């Protein structure tokens, strides 16, 4: 099975990527907007945060900058889709591809190292928490806090309009809601969360890399689907916590798979995307298969 440290590591990853998963949940489930921008906005957040820190900006503040950058990236996708009438998938791919170039510009290269730099984990470590516990605790508190914030948001007037926009745009327009603005806001918020997640990941692993976002959307979808399947999505609070826990379950499953040995065969970390994609396909067709048999 897996060691205690691997378990802690998976929980830590689950929480920090869980913030990204919440973002994917907002677009994919609430707005019914498959948003591939996240593959670019995760490294964007990492790049902004890392560059800001190496320029002497407070690591906490750097995360706000990262969120702002992610929000803007989402807004661009939203505008491409609503105002310029580009298909949502294509709009998000265009932003994602542009972000590859932009991220390299921001970092003046393909990566930035944060070795020895100050991070948001320092205060916890100074308080006496061991390094391997500081990250899961901080990420856990933050992810839970953000989940609560999102749940509260979805019960506000704007949040309700967002839910309705994903469900029945024709109805919500006839109730006087500008769905274009709601979509732009929603995709922006989602990518703000994803970029925050990226910033935290960079600080945690000590580097930002332009390729760290590859497969983000697939991992996000897998976590959303796994969470909803295991814990249900009957109400908004249930669904939001389900996808956060889905993220942890997903990372645990990955850790298990990576530790697996069948004869001389074992999975390499580069097999992750394939495994995840297959997992998502299975999860997506499962309801249809159930009906057939």
């Amino acid at each position, binding site marked *: 099975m897996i060691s205690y440290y691997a378990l802690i590591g998976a929980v830590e990853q689950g929480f920090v990527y869980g913030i990204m998963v919440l973002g994917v949940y907002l677009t994919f489930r609430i707005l019914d907007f498959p948003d591939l921008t996240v593959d670019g906005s995760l490294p964007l957040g990492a790049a902004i945060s890392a560059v800001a820190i190496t320029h002497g900006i407070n690591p906490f503040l750097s995360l706000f900058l990262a969120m702002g950058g992610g929000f803007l990236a989402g807004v661009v996708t939203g505008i491409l889709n609503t105002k310029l009438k580009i298909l949502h998938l294509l709009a998000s791919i265009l932003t994602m591809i542009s972000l590859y170039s932009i991220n390299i510009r921001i970092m003046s290269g393909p990566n930035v190292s944060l070795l020895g730099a100050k991070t948001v984990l320092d205060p916890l470590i100074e308080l006496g928490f061991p390094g391997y516990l500081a990250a899961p605790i901080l990420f856990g508190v933050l992810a839970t806090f953000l989940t609560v914030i999102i749940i509260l948001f979805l019960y*506000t*007037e704007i949040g*309700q309009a967002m839910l309705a926009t994903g469900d029945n745009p*024709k109805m919500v327009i006839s109730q006087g809601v500008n769905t274009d603005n709601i979509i732009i806001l929603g995709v922006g918020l989602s990518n703000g969360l994803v970029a925050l997640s990226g910033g935290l990941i960079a600080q945690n692993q000590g580097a930002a890399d332009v390729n760290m976002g590859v497969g983000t959307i697939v991992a996000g979808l897998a976590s959303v689907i796994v969470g909803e399947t295991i814990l249900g999505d009957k109400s908004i609070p249930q669904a939001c916590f389900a996808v956060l826990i889905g993220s942890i379950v997903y990372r645990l499953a990955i850790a298990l798979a990576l530790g697996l040995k069948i004869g001389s065969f074992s999975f390499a970390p580069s097999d992750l995307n394939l495994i995840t994609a297959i997992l998502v396909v299975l999860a997506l067709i499962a309801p249809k298969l159930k009906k057939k048999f």
Partner: protein
Amino acid sequence: MIILKNISKYFNKGSVNQVLALNNINLQIKKGDFITVIGSNGAGKSTLLNCLAGSFLPSHGQILFNQQDITNWPEYKRAKFVGRVFQDPLLGTCASMSIEQNMALALRRGKTRTLALGVTSKDRVIFKELLAKLGLSLENRLADKVGLLSGGQRQALTMLMATMVRPEILLLDEHTAALDPKTAQHILRLTEEIVNEQHLTTLMVTHNMHQAIQLGNRLIMLHRGEVIFDIHGEEKYKLTVQELLSRFYELRGEEFSSDKMLLI
């Protein structure tokens, strides 16, 4: 007062599939008018309603609302004074949201949405009162998802939602056509009640000639995107189906018999 001036609407303009859905429509809708709109398939009834609601903009012409030119206003902006009920009972409500959440969306029609609570306890009092009037026992099911309701219940709810904030004009697009006869009758009675109670200016598209004659103070018939018949007041009350048909042949002298509308 709503004035349509020389409204034309082309679909697929410039292509081989070009259709002239509305042809130079001139219409004055007076405050308090309850207009029933009839016409064969493709006559332009729904296009007329959609033009008023702003679902698309007319190719030519002008729409004046109380002397204000709203021709280029997008649909969500016009929603401030337009209440709508669609033919499909599923279109007027959000299935995944609760009854009270749907009603709260409607209660804030025309207002800027904020980060205030989506459904307040004050709202619930209003909703219970309104739902009790329907007689469908929905007042005890505020937290139930709308997806659990029947088509008739959803259409009744949509009727309430469209008129909760008093609309300057109520647009009903064959809103009973997808229901069974008994439920349709119920929704129709509800429509009459609400319209009379609030003195709403109403435009109701229907395929049913009896309905068109029974309800409202004015009747217009559309054919190939034109108003071919506009009758109101005393004359409208005396109108019979036979008369309506003969008037139609008189005006057009065209073959019309194959049409569904004549099956009544």
